[in-house]
């Protein structure tokens, strides 16, 4: 049995005296897609940000592809981890193409021309080749998020972390982003996703992890969790989430 791509061991994090992560451990195999679900405040986003040390954990280990994630090599490590933010965080002063290319020429040291060529291919991959010259403010939320995914892909990441990628989007715009994510999962990208998008979780996730109050309550394949969750908390949460989604669909 080969080493998992990502191993999280006993992660702890506290903010202002409150413990937000209380000993999280799990693995992610190469090519797997796992979705983290749970109520707000459960620590999901914090966990994600600990993986690339955007937030520094208090205790515990994170091992990526056999290398431990430590601060003294953090820039090199982050260059191999893709991160997609809830608020997109595209560089406002750069056009879409340069947003995707900047990592290549600033971090990887590519020359500008090659960086832009590669960036153009990534934009095409997410379906935005025709918007390469647009500034972020000229793009819709869904388009911005797709550019942000292209920006992550351009760095040839070993794994991509998604922090509630569709939560800031209007409902009509989520599908275009979710579709890109499904495609990536099909292509074998290793993905760790924090999301409320149950549709994506059901269809594309290899495993769903349910977190509450800083601990993992339950984990398992989607069909098992949705149909036959072991814990009452899990069932309650899933019912609330699915219920509200059903209402949205019913109303449309």
């Amino acid at each position, binding site marked *: 049995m080969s080493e998992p791509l990502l191993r999280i061991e006993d992660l702890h994090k506290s903010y202002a005296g409150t413990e937000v992560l209380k000993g999280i451990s799990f693995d992610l195999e190469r090519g797997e897609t796992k979705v983290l679900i749970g109520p707000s405040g459960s620590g999901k986003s914090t966990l994600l940000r600990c993986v*690339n040390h*955007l937030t520094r954990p208090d205790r515990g280990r994170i091992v990526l592809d056999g290398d431990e994630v430590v601060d003294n090599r953090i*820039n*090199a*490590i*982050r*260059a*191999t*981890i893709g*991160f997609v*933010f809830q*608020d997109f*965080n*595209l*560089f*406002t*002063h750069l056009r879409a193409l340069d947003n995707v290319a*900047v*990592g290549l020429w*600033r*971090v990887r040291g590519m020359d500008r021309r090659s960086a832009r060529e590669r960036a153009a291919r990534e934009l095409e991959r997410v379906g935005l080749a025709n918007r390469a010259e647009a*500034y*972020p*403010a*000229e793009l819709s939320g869904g388009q911005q998020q797709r550019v*942000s995914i292209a*920006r*992550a892909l351009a*760095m040839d990441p070993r794994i991509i972390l998604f922090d509630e990628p569709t939560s800031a989007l209007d409902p009509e715009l989520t599908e275009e982003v979710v579709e890109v994510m499904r495609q990536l999962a099909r292509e074998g990208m290793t993905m760790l996703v924090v999301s409320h998008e149950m549709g994506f979780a059901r269809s594309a996730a290899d495993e769903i992890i349910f977190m509450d109050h800083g601990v993992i309550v339950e984990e398992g394949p989607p069909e098992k969790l949705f149909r036959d969750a072991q814990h009452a908390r899990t069932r309650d949460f899933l019912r609330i989430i699915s219920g509200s989604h059903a209402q949205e669909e019913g109303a449309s």
Partner: protein
Amino acid sequence: MSIYGVLLDQLPYLLQGLGIAVLLLMALLVVGLVLGLFFALVEIYGPLWARLPVYALERFARGVPAIILLFLFYYGIGNVYAIPSFAAAVAALGLRSGGYQSQIFRGAIQSVPYGQMLAARAIGMGRMGAVAYIIVPQALRHAIGPWSNEFSAEFKDTSLAYVIGVIELTRQAHYIISNQHGHTLPVLLFAAVLYFVVNRFGNSLLYRLEDRLEVPGFERRS
């Protein structure tokens, strides 16, 4: 001689004075820009031992009246080395402008959303690279509005260089008044008009620059 005769006659001198004022303005703004950016970056990203003296210097430069600063530089350096008054004015007003511009740049840098820094770090950029390529380019665009105000204020303050003998517009006007009798008001008003017009002109140029640099996503100030 009629007042119009006087003004026409003395026009070359007044324009010369105006030219010196503009030159002084350009020089002090450049000094202020370099200092201001430096102060701002140190105050936001620097270690404590650097932040404190920079902050103290900035406070001093902003809190002391311009005339006092002019005297300090002129007579202070003048004790050691005979500095021409123009140079002293550039140094004094430049330092002061640096203090004000540092405030502008600090505000501009802090108005860049924190998520920009996060995203830059997330793709593996180092802190300095992120500041240079992601934060500062955006901050400069945010700074243009307040910077135009600083431009206007400094142009008017060039008139204070009068007190250390720089022969800019105000001193030229004063010379004329001392030589001609009874035409004080028109000469002064004319000088005022020159200041006003050039100020307006400068502002409209900056406005157009703001237009040129406008990029969707950076709302221009109304």
